[in-house]
């Protein structure tokens, strides 16, 4: 992989992921030196497993939500001098090999932000209800921000250092993904989508968001848009 000055930092927010996080960090570490796991107040052995697999572990002493954990990891990476910050889910749904294509896109397209999309290219096996919700969310955030994406809530992203420094995620829960699109729009960042494959395992579906959570996400997002 070509050199990126300051290096690539991979941020992995993790909450009660002791069974999956070890393998995820191990596979990331084969390609990247700097893997930062933000243990978001887990009650299990997430921090121990992540450290054993070779990650730097940052601990939220109480659970603050995925958006908060991501921002912590991004802040830390920037302070360490990261040239590119990648975000990656802890439950094993992403593929490490997709990252290198995202880094390529950062360079080739001169983008500030590259976001993975499960709806471009090779088909991820997305459950139908989930597919509908994600596409709807992408459409709605596209309408309000003018930033057109095919996949609204994909955890696999890459940020150039300058872009990562501008983005502030204040929505601590899952609505940060829509907030991110706002931030991209607000700062006029150039964004590219790259096809990635999401692996829906029984584990990741059980651990992940229920589709009902969409209501909560929409509420948090709207409240921020109305009162800030």
């Amino acid at each position: 992989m070509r050199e990126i000055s300051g290096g690539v930092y991979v941020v992995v927010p993790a909450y009660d992921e002791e069974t999956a996080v070890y393998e995820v960090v191990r596979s990331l570490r084969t390609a990247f030196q700097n893997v930062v796991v933000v243990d978001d107040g887990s009650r299990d052995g997430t921090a121990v497993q992540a450290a054993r697999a070779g990650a730097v572990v940052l601990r939220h002493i109480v659970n603050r939500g995925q958006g908060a954990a991501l921002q912590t990891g991004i802040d830390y990476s920037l302070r360490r001098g990261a040239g590119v910050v990648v975000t990656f889910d802890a439950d094993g749904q992403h593929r490490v090999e997709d990252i290198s294509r995202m880094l390529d896109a950062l360079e080739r397209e001169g983008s500030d932000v590259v976001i993975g999309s499960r709806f471009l290219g090779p088909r991820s096996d997305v459950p139908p209800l989930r597919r509908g919700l994600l596409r709807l969310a992408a459409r709605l955030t596209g309408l309000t921000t003018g930033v057109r994406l095919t996949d609204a809530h994909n955890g696999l992203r890459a940020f150039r250092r300058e872009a990562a420094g501008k983005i502030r995620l204040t929505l601590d829960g899952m609505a940060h993904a829509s907030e991110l699109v706002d931030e991209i729009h607000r700062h006029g960042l150039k964004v590219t989508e790259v096809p990635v494959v999401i692996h829906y395992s029984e584990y990741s579906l059980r651990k992940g968001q229920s589709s009902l959570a969409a209501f909560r996400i929409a509420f948090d997002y709207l409240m921020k848009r109305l009162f800030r």
Partner: protein
Amino acid sequence: MFQWITLPALLVVVLITAAAIRRRRLNSRAGAAWLLLWVAAAVSVAFPDILVVVARFLGIGRGADLILYFSILFMFAGFFLVYLRFRRIDDQLTRIVRHLAIRDGEEKRGGKAAP
């Protein structure tokens, strides 16, 4: 009969509020607003006819309905203010937790300079 229970109770509440203001548990502006509310309540309990006049003036039939409508209005406004404050505290808590996480992480690695 209702007056004989409510008025002393309100008097006690007024005294508690006044004590809270004196001990600076309440700032004087918020304290004044609460006192005003209690006094208004006491006046409308002691002289319910005043309420009826105000209600009629606003096109509401009964004094009790006037109180009901205003209470609901104030309650919703109250919920909303509490919600906003809750969000602010949430945000502050996140920043503290983040600060601790990054500080501890950097201590483990020693120094904050890039490697």
